[in-house]
């Protein structure tokens, strides 16, 4: 028994050391790549798939879109922190904030980890991981295990010293997605509504906490923050529960002092501008990006338009 326990412990210890080495090497590799890829962008577009599909950075000079599918604010916060570490010239942050961002699904995500969330984990520090795990040591250990998994994925790149040529190539940095879809299928819309608004818990406390942390970080670094609610199709928006809309309005009111709010739902867009009920396609993104630029210009947050 003694021999068995010693051997098992020794192997586990060696394995843990190996994992730690891989994790540290992976993080170092990611940081080096990031340093090399980040230019002097002055405007950063952040959020989840809504901003990923809705704002085309090529229309705004000196800007970058780093939105990623299903990204929680917790990871947007850590991404922003990391970017500011390497790029002090950031002047403006555009952050997506819509009704679904309050969804309780973000608080239960540690039980059903999406691929994106796992990729994001490699970035968060231990406090962030602990927060993400509902401050439960049990879930925290589970998150750590998944982080190691993600770092192991980058192992082939580390070994071959493969260099990413753009930020989008480096997980989990995301980027603009020019969607060619135009599918306003009822079942897709119903599915999204169910996923976004019918969860237990109903609202995410983690999302609200990190939304405020992002705003505070921007204020601290004297960065202008613009909140955008990307356009939703009327068939989708009609199905959003009224209490979600009220909660959204309350939060917006409480955070939006000195903050510009761009509400895409004021825009009149026809069906051909939507990829599905809650995402714009390439055509919609062109219109909405120009709309955002015009609002920014009106409110003196001047930005150059690339033709």
């Amino acid at each position: 028994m003694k021999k068995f326990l010693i051997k098992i412990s020794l192997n586990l210890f060696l394995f843990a050391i190996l994992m730690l080495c891989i994790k540290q090497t992976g993080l170092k590799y990611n940081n080096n790549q990031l340093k090399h890829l980040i230019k002097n962008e002055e405007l950063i577009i952040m959020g989840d798939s809504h901003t990923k599909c809705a704002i085309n950075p090529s229309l705004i000079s000196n800007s970058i879109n780093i939105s990623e599918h299903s990204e929680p604010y917790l990871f947007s916060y850590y991404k922003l922190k990391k970017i500011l570490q390497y790029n002090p010239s950031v002047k403006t942050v555009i952050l997506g904030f819509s009704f679904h961002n309050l969804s309780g699904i973000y608080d239960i995500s540690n039980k059903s980890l999406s691929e994106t969330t796992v990729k994001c984990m490699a970035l968060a520090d231990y406090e962030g991981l602990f927060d993400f795990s509902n401050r439960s040591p049990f879930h925290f250990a589970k998150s750590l295990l998944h982080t190691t998994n993600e770092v192991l994925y980058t192992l082939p790149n580390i070994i071959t010293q493969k260099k990413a040529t753009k930020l989008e190539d480096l997980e989990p940095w995301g980027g603009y997605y020019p969607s060619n879809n135009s599918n306003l299928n009822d079942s897709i819309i119903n599915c999204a509504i169910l996923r976004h608004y019918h969860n237990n818990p109903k609202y995410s406390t983690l999302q609200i906490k990190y939304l405020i942390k992002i705003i505070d970080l921007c204020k601290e670094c004297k960065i202008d923050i613009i909140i955008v609610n990307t356009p939703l199709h009327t068939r989708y928006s009609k199905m959003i529960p009224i209490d979600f809309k009220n909660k959204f309005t309350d939060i917006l009111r409480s955070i939006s002092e000195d903050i510009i709010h761009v509400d895409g739902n004021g825009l009149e867009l026809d069906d051909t501008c939507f990829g599905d009920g809650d995402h714009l396609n390439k055509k919609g993104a062109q219109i909405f990006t120009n709309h955002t630029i015009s609002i920014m210009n009106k409110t003196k947050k001047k930005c150059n338009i690339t033709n």
Partner: protein
Amino acid sequence: MLFNSFEYVLFLPIVFLLYWFVFNKSLKLQNFFLLTVSYIFYGWWDWRFLSLIAFSSLVDYVAALKIESSEKRNTRRLFLTISLLTNLGFLGVFKYFNFFSQSLADGFEQLGYTLHPLTLDVVLPVGISFYTFQTMSYSIDVYRKKLTATKEIIDFFAYVSFFPQLVAGPIERATNLLPQFHKKRIFSYDQGAIGMRQILWGLFKKMVVADNCAVMVDQIFDNHETLPGSVLIMGSIYFAIQIYGDFSGYSDIAIGTARLFGFKLMTNFRTPYFSRDMAEFWRRWHISLSTWFRDYLYIPLGGSRVNTQRAIRNTFFIFLVSGFWHGANWTFLAWGALNAIYFIPLLLTGYNRKNISTVAENRCLPNIKELLQMGITFALTCIAWVFFRAENISTAVTYLKGIITYKFIPDNYHYFHPKYIFILAIWLVLEWFIFRHDDAFGKIDLLSKWIRRPAYFILICITIIFTVNEAQSFIYFQF
């Protein structure tokens, strides 16, 4: 609690240490501890169903004692019937009631009468088919005087609910497992090491092979109407490997875990996809269930030592019951019937016991003939698996028709992604070169530690890298 969950990663070492260091003072205490942790393990899903196991165990415990104490044939038969009816009654209510009710209504509808079927809104208790079969074998063996009824109630309850094999087998016979509860267990380093290796290999088969194949299988079966023939063929291969990885992976983890506690469970799979004919396949696939049906159903019916007509009837009956054991759906019956059709020609020509030894036993690679035989057998099982996986018979038929009707070459190679091919290649190589041989987990010791240790690390790394993010349940839990 799932074997591939984080909860189990904590549960197993805690139970292991308490078992060997705290509760090792007496056998009774150790068995009581095993019973408690087994109930915790099962109750993790739904504690309400613990009452079913407890009740089933109690009925069989009492029935077996009564059977043994009575010399009167009628009394013995009465208590055996009570035991069988209780267990089959549970299965009937929880697993088959809705199926029969709905089928009856459908049958009447065909005749022009509309019936509103009475259905029960009940959840199928995890592993019910496994533990009911295990307890039934105990009562039958006592009735047949092959086994003495135990008076140790804790030992018996622990045998029924022994956590490593409780929810998905192997379906252990009381003649093998129960005596192990009566004897003092001694930890052996070799058995512990073999157990750990078997757990690791089981986790690899489940978390890497089965769960990754499942991703492809779900996509292909959900969209089979629009996919080309080559993709549909690949879909059936993925499913064949998924179900094998899933179920044999579970069995390996169960057997490995039991070894850590000083128990030896029966082998449940012996690389069945390297079989040269369907009879060999059935000697290597889900052995604990096949032998259960053989001993308690097939042989009492006369087996193959009867006239041709009855031999065909018996074979068909056994395969249909085996299909029905898996689930209350016509697809499982079709799967069973198809396997009977594959098996009967071998039985009638006397070829059913032709391939007894392991393929290419003292050789590194199979010869052309063996390769061809294995290919044909695998293809036949893949066709049958389509029925097993499909939601209904018509879907299975459409799927199989699609293989030959639609275009064959795919527009893109999404379903042949190198990641999946790589996983399958690793599995195939290890399965052929190492696990095809008897006592493979023990023979690994013959390798130098400088080969073994890095190999374990690599296997663990591959398991972590390729594991699907969320812990997937085991397919056989639903049976």
